[in-house]
């Protein structure tokens, strides 16, 4: 079957199915059994999606027609799936066990991946043992990760999610994250920190990211102000560079001995598995970090080998395709019912929207289909008090991902276990009400006022973890990474570049020059920009 035929088959199937409310679909016997899927401890429940088991068959046919199996193999084999930059996207190689091999351009990358992981483990070990010394000889007790985008969101998300896995030796190290270009996070943080015992991780793939280098320069200046020692000594003791551009990091002043590397074949938003994960390893220890990698690797193997009909990333992706391209839903809410996953929405916003927020296909043609929806999210119970009103009674169709674990606080105090029970109950309740609407209360409840009515029929996916562990988080994130890849294959786009962020950088450089110079009124941009430049100039009293 070619893909056009598969699209058309699904379109006509959708036309029939659209009239059927989720409450009716959920009345079908055996629905949960036929629409829940599992890999290890992770359960994917698609039974609240507006589809039938045979829809899944049609979607899998579409995937096959788009040569998904071929693309999956190309991804894992290290082919140049990032065609605009002519390089592979090998985040899966970052989690291969040491015994694995993968040749890229005639070189086995696994040994160098593990060599860098081993160097990272040594650094973690030194820091955990209080033997990384600052300029006074005191042990480093605070680590500040300076990075933005993929060098920030992944590590921050994982550190928050796995905080309770902190081993005892890691308790002596406080980990902070700083990303914002304007320095507002850094300035507030530096007020409280002791320069003699603070280490900065400068995380930047290119080591040219202006946001990160601006923060790093402020941190460096802070150290220089605190100590009379030569800058070179301060930088070598208080900075670690994590980068794919070692020469640039050297030029900035960080010696090779204080660098950890990764490679251009790792995309920023796919890099938490690399040495970019240093803050994670510092927080949860090297053993737990290995578990995170092992969980992701297990999902990789599942994605590569499981039949498409039982393949979790494929099913999650194709469900999204169904909602976006056949049911015309273009908003996607990420709703973890677990405060530890508070940064998951922001992480997935980048992963999905920077990967698939594109309208040009690999061959340069315009995409005939709608692509990545708008993603946003929040910790579910908090979002209930914020934007759920729109989900329940607004005009916009929204697809939701609920993420929750079955067990939490085992062996801890009863009131905490109770709180998890409460969160779980709310998660199940919201998924049910979104799907069923008023019908959730049973029949005979139709005497309510119009503004008390719930129309339901909002589709959702529940991802149920046994427990939130490093391994489970690794699998969960890999699930979404591969989901994004599958969707990109269906849409025919390259998910591994991000040309859309370049023009803004160029323009900012031009504007910076104008702001730096005194003659702002002479600027020759568009009227709106010129007008604002003039207004800023006036407010600054004519000085820049």
């Amino acid at each position: 079957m070619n893909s056009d035929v598969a699209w058309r088959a699904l379109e006509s199937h959708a036309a029939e199915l659209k009239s059927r409310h989720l409450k009716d679909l959920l009345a079908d016997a055996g629905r949960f059994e036929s629409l829940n899927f599992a890999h290890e401890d992770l359960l994917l429940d698609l039974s609240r999606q507006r589809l039938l088991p045979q829809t899944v068959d049609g979607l899998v046919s579409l995937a096959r027609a788009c040569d998904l199996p071929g693309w999956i193999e190309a991804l894992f084999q290290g082919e140049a799936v990032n065609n605009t930059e002519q390089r592979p996207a090998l985040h899966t190689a970052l989690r291969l066990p040491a015994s694995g091999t993968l040749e890229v351009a005639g070189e086995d990358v696994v040994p160098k991946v593990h060599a860098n992981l081993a160097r990272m483990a040594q650094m973690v070990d030194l820091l955990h043992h209080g033997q990384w010394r600052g300029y006074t000889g005191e042990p480093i007790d605070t680590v500040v990760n300076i990075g933005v985008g993929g060098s920030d969101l992944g590590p921050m998300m994982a550190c928050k999610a796995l905080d309770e896995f902190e081993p005892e030796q890691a308790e002596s190290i406080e980990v902070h994250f700083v990303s914002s270009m304007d320095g507002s996070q850094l300035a507030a943080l530096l007020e409280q920190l002791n320069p003699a015992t603070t280490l900065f991780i400068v995380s930047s793939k290119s080591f040219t990211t202006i946001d990160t280098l601006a923060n790093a320069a402020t941190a460096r200046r802070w150290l220089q102000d605190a100590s009379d020692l030569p800058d070179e000594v301060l930088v070598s003791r208080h900075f670690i560079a994590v980068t794919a551009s070692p020469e640039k990091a050297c030029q900035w002043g960080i010696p090779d001995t204080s660098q950890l590397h990764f490679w251009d074949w790792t995309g920023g938003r796919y890099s938490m598995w690399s040495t970019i994960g240093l803050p994670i390893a510092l927080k949860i220890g090297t053993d737990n970090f290995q578990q995170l990698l092992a969980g992701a690797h297990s999902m990789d193997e599942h994605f590569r080998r499981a039949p498409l009909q039982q393949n979790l990333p494929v099913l999650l992706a194709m469900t999204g395709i169904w909602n976006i391209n056949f049911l015309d839903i273009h908003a996607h809410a990420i709703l973890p019912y677990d405060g530890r996953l508070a940064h998951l929405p922001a992480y997935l916003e980048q992963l999905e929207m920077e990967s698939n927020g594109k309208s040009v296909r690999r061959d340069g043609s315009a995409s005939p289909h709608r692509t990545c929806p708008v993603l946003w999210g929040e910790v579910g119970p908090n979002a209930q008090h914020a934007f759920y009103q729109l989900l329940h009674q607004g005009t916009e169709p929204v697809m939701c991902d609920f993420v929750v674990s079955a067990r939490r606080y085992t062996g801890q105090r009863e009131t905490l276990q109770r709180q998890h029970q409460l969160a779980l109950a709310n998660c199940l309740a919201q998924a049910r009400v979104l799907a069923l609407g008023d019908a959730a209360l049973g029949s005979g409840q139709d005497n309510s006022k119009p503004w008390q009515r719930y129309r339901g029929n909002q589709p959702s996916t529940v991802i149920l973890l046994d427990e939130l562990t490093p391994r489970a988080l690794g699998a969960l994130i890999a699930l979404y990474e591969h989901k994004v890849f599958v969707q990109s294959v269906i849409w025919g786009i390259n998910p591994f570049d991000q040309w859309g962020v370049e023009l803004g950088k160029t323009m900012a450089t031009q504007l910076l020059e104008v702001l730096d110079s005194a003659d702002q009124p002479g600027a020759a941009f568009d009227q709106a920009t010129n007008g604002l430049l003039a207004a800023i100039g006036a407010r600054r009293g004519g000085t820049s």
Partner: protein
Amino acid sequence: MDGNGTMRIAVWGDELAAWVAVAQLAAFGNDVSVVRHSGTAANGGARPGQSSVRAEPGLMALLESAEAQGHLRAESDDQCLAADIHWLAMAPDEEDQAAALVQRLAQGGKTPLLLVNQSNFGIGASDRLQALLDHDIGQAVLCLPDTLQQGRALEQFGRPERLLVGCEDSAALALLKALLRPFSGGVQSLQLMTRREAEFSKFAITGMLALRLGYINELANLADLLGVDIEVVRQGMGSDERIGRHYLAPGCGFGGQHFTQYIEGLAGLFSEKRRSTLLDTVLLENQRQMELPFRKLWQHYACDLSGKTVVLWGLAFKPGVASIDNAPALRIIDALLAQGVQVRLHDPEALPEVREHYGEVAQLEYCADKYDAAEGADALLLLTEWPEYWSPDFGRLAQLLRAKVLVDGRNIYDPALLRAQGFDYYGIGRL
């Protein structure tokens, strides 16, 4: 007690307080027994296990003469258990052993006995021991906190300025007074309180000493930054009679299992009952202080010790002991090893313990001679003030060292003298 009124006393424990009690009680004609250990001398003689106790001035002579006169005997457990008075001066971590011992006494029969507890088991321990005995038949526990100072212990026991006694039983008190009559010169110097109060007093005194040590170290570190000589300041402080001179010597931290454990116990109590971090802070700062010699070295070599060789003089937590429990040397060695430094170690007694702790490591050399150890080193760190380190041949040292860098962790050297000989000298708060 036998017919002619001589008291039969068994002393339990291997602490300084135990041996001082043994020597002094036997010297005044009491029959004193100590437990014969498998490790004791072939003649069965009673000898302290720790060199710091054996080094106590006058102690060994007194023990030998007591033995010669037949007032001191090393005996089996069972023989010791038959005594009328049991003097417990055991280590702070031996409360379980003490309880087991008292249980055996309780099972031994319904005879009156006096148990003098001089061990630092913490508040409530003496009450717990009493609970194992039958007070109604005259089995009494009293608490006599150990306030002896090393070096002056015999004199302090022999002519105490004051005694704190935790005792809630008049017969037991009378017996103690009889026992101590030769020493106490009457009862006017005796302060009577409950057992718990006595234990609390001991706690309070020890905590105060730790606070003083912590404070003088803080002052020394500040003096370092402000260009003031702490030695001068400390003499000034000590001349104020409200302050006095004791426990005001700055250095690279206090160690030892007992003192540290005891302070930790008190700190834990403060933290649990009062949410007070006062003593926690003292302990934390003490840990930092232990690394101070390393930091001085680190700064001297501009944060780069790679390829350096460093010699350490003194590894035991204090002079006179072979123990390295919580010794600053351990933290210094760890820090140096982590920086890839070649470390040469010397100590008159503690080398075997250090070797047991680290084993054979390429970066560590265990040296029998202090001058040999110094040969070719880039710095000498003095960590324990053993007598043999006080006045070395500096000329010889200067020739042996590759770099004349000396970090004096105990302020035992004269900075001017050393600088005159071309050393880079670093003390704790010294100019």
